[in-house]
């Protein structure tokens, strides 16, 4: 898309809840604009009642994920020129989550699954004890660090077909979180977290389709975390080195 007085984007945006329709808006095309910029421009200039969600605008908070031309994406870091199809953008709320209004969906089921997967950190030491020493190069810490940078955007949850087929399935993000805790020496109930991740609707429901890894905007590999959880369920918890 090239910037110019005559160039415009056709933006189809979902309006409504589960029942609704696409409405088309014309927005000036600019050399540098993200999908979030476009949605914001529509909301500020043409449709003030358009509901959508964002916060940081720089790919940290994970609030602004939407479905753009059929794929879930973080819209603040998605440049229009990479995704527009013949000058057209189609923007919908994320798949696999209840729709609240327009582009905003209810994230409660997503975070409920984090809790179900045992994703709440529970330390074993009190604040009066010295911090636990963790070797950053130990295999469990490397495994946890490789999966820890999840921004909770729910892109993987929306991309996952198993979540679409089975609403009981915990989903890639919750299981990825569980895998980081299973490898965290400071987390007390590591075994309980693994049991929860292996329970019905847990890691064994994954079909290894790889949509989550393919779409994760920060380059994590939930597929790998889920496969590692399956291995741990068969072969036991990852071994932590003895504290010094």
């Amino acid at each position: 898309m090239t910037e110019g007085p005559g160039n415009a984007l056709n933006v189809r945006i979902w309006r409504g809840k589960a029942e609704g329709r696409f409405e088309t808006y014309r927005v000036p095309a600019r050399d540098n604009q993200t999908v979030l910029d476009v949605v914001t421009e529509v909301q500020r200039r043409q449709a003030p009642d358009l509901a959508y969600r964002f916060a940081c605008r720089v790919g940290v908070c994970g609030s602004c994920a939407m479905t753009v031309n059929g794929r879930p994406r973080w819209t603040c870091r998605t440049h229009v020129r990479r995704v527009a199809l013949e000058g057209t953008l189609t923007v919908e709320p994320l798949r696999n989550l209840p729709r609240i209004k327009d582009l905003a969906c209810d994230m409660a089921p997503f975070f409920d699954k984090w809790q179900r997967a045992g994703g709440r950190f529970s330390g074993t030491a009190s604040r009066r004890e010295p911090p636990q020493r963790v070797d950053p190069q130990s295999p469990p810490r490397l495994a946890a660090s490789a999966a820890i940078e999840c921004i909770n955007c729910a892109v993987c949850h929306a991309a996952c077909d198993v979540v679409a087929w089975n609403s009981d399935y915990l989903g890639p993000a919750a299981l990825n979180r569980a895998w980081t805790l299973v490898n965290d020496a400071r987390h007390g109930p590591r075994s309980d977290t693994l049991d929860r991740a292996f329970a019905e609707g847990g890691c064994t429901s994954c079909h290894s389709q790889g949509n989550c890894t393919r779409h994760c905007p920060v380059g994590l590999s939930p597929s790998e975390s889920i496969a590692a959880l399956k291995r741990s369920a068969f072969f036991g918890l990852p071994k932590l080195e003895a504290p010094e």
Partner: protein
Amino acid sequence: MQPLRNHESYLAFLGHRLSGLALAVFLPFHFLALGLALEGAERLDAFLVFAELPLVKVAEWGLVTLLTLHLCFGLRLLALELLVWPYRNDPRLRWIFPGTAAAIAVGVAFYAQVW
């Protein structure tokens, strides 16, 4: 196909699942043929004559190809789930093309042997 499914790993999932379903449909007929062998040569011979029909041969070719595909993609899944991943963010995509190629090679070999 939805854009989000348009990648190798999803195609491998589809290949594995659909070939598995086809094999599940085939298995009862396979056991039927084996059962006929136990009941006497006459009935088995009649079945084998039926199995020589061209349409049945085409189905057999399809099954042999799909069986190889299912085996190769199943080995990939076992490796994914039981072995440590050699590369980050790579669900052994390098195994998909050789698995497909092996299925095609077996299909060609079967064709050459039968026709």
